């Protein structure tokens, strides 16, 4: 069987997720040995033409040009996987969806008329079919390797969609919300980070977006009981995954 071809694409994003692939120091050689890295500008100037077997897509759609480009990429890719909060939920830049983008451009750019941008930042799945979404801001290295591995072996990746609390309990952290009243998004956030923040006395920031059956409203009610103001609740829900439907619905309710 000929080796499969991997492409890594970038849209509106910070590059952190695709750099996770380069950060796979120990595994990178085995990955490069198992799959042809055909298109990955961050890593190599060599570009092999499509079609591609596996496309990893980072970033959200924010310009008319990108909205067209993702269509071409989809056509060229047998399997398309989004990586990270931008590609999966629109990213932090989706905060523009609640504001007037022209106001931003007029403040930031000397010649705003040169800027061609959409009013919204949207997830890749709003534009094309997506085969799998890898969560996180940034994604987890271990999950990325698992995903590529599962892909190469034609099996389903083992990436549980349950809450961060499951990881928090497994590592033995006494829950900070229960023991200290610190608001934590862990119960409604998709696992994957290993529950790092609660282990350092911080509430979960929701980097991996909503968990599989997130009851955000019930958590919001509890937070209010802890003394969290509506504005702070809205701010907590409107970060990297602000436009994930489960978070957006509740942040809109309290905004």
């Amino acid at each position, binding site marked *: 069987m000929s080796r499969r071809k991997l492409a890594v694409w970038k849209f509106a994003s910070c590059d952190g997720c695709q750099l996770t692939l380069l950060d796979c120091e120990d*595994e990178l050689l085995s990955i490069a040995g*198992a799959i042809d890295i055909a298109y990955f500008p961050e890593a190599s100037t060599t570009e092999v033409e499509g079609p591609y077997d596996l496309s990893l897509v980072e970033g959200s759609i924010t310009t008319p040009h990108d909205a067209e480009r993702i269509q071409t990429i989809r056509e060229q890719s047998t399997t398309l996987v989004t990586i990270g909060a931008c590609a999966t939920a629109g990213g932090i830049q989706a905060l523009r969806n609640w504001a007037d983008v022209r106001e931003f451009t007029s403040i930031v750019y000397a010649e705003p008329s040169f800027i061609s941008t959409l009013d919204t930042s949207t997830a890749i799945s709003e534009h094309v079919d997506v085969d799998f979404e890898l969560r996180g801001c940034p994604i987890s290295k271990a999950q990325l390797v698992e995903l590529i591995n599962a892909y190469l072996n034609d099996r389903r990746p083992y990436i549980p969609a349950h809450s961060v609390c499951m990881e928090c309990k*497994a590592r033995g952290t*006494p829950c900070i919300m*229960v023991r200290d009243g610190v608001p934590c998004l862990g*119960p409604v956030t998709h696992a994957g980070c290993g529950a790092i923040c609660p282990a350092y006395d911080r509430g979960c920031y929701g980097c991996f977006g909503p968990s599989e059956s997130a009851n955000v409203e019930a958590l919001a009610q509890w937070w209010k009981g802890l003394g969290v103001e509506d504005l702070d609740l809205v701010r907590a829900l409107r970060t990297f995954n602000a436009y994930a439907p489960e978070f957006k619905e509740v942040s809109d309710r309290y905004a």
Partner: protein
Amino acid sequence: MDPQTVDRHGLDRLITHLAESGFEVIGPTVRDGAVIYDHISSTSDLPVGQGDAQEGGQYRLVNRGDSALFGYNLGPTSWKQYLFPPKTELLHIRRSNGDLVIEEPPTRTRPMAFFGIRGCELAAISIQDKVFLDSGYVDRTYASGRKDLLLVAVNCTTSAATCFCTSMGTGPKCESGYDIVITELVDDGETRYLVAADTERGESIITAVGGSPAKDEQLANAESAVQSTAADMIRSMDTDGIYDLLIENPDHPRWEQVAERCLTCGNCTQACPTCFCSDVADRVTLDGTAIRERRWDSCFGLDFSALNREPVRESTSSRYRQWMTHKLATWHDQFGSSGCVGCGRCITWCPVGIDITEEIVAMKETVST
């Protein structure tokens, strides 16, 4: 052997004796603002002078203003993390000259001693014994931890607001299943520890540690301290008819009401000392080696009931109902006892304070009227 009394130094000698006899000694200690179970080497590692204030979704350590060694109740972790760890490697699989080599990683060889285990927790271990040792299949990880496990129990002389062991018949007094049981006695301002053995092993340890025979008055004080803990317990669960109540009411509206509050986060199941569910997954490297790993799982997850990828229990109400019905009803069919020992962890460590005792009250009220 008659019960003996020792002072705090006597308990230090006990801990040292266990360590010198080859045990890995694990006991309560304070970390991250809570009492957890970890390695201890003397009584100063214990939560000295600490108590706790617990309610649904709330836990705070409080300073008791004394030097009691056992003046608190349960924290978020249970002993199950040592017998049934959150992650266990089951198999190592690799290729060698075209053949698959499958190896079982070694299990524990050094015995553990659990120091400071409470009545409800002894009951939880005997429940997990049924699951992992006596159900026709012996789990090698659990069995290796359980082998020669020494249990130094503590009778509770205080209870948390979330404890309801009296209703479940598991505490606050330790009735059986331990090697040694300690009762903390505050006597004329001087704290003494009544130590009694229930096994030969326990007796020989007490003999080695030394102490003085307990006086009748001390025995009576210990008994009344435990009795008043039982009498003062705030929470309770009326277990009368509970099996029929749950089995006959799968469509009770209360399931939907609790589902509105439940986050399906799984904390209750992870904190529960009897919950035993796990998932098995292979961690495979690209060069073809695999580690088969068992991880704690929860009936609150969607994958848990997935058949051909689709969950059987999709609604939150069906998942909460599964958990509670299993704990309090179908566990009897499966293992011949309740699956709940009344420790209250699922109440305290539920991030939104959902209370299994309150759910039973609510269902009973509406069903009987």
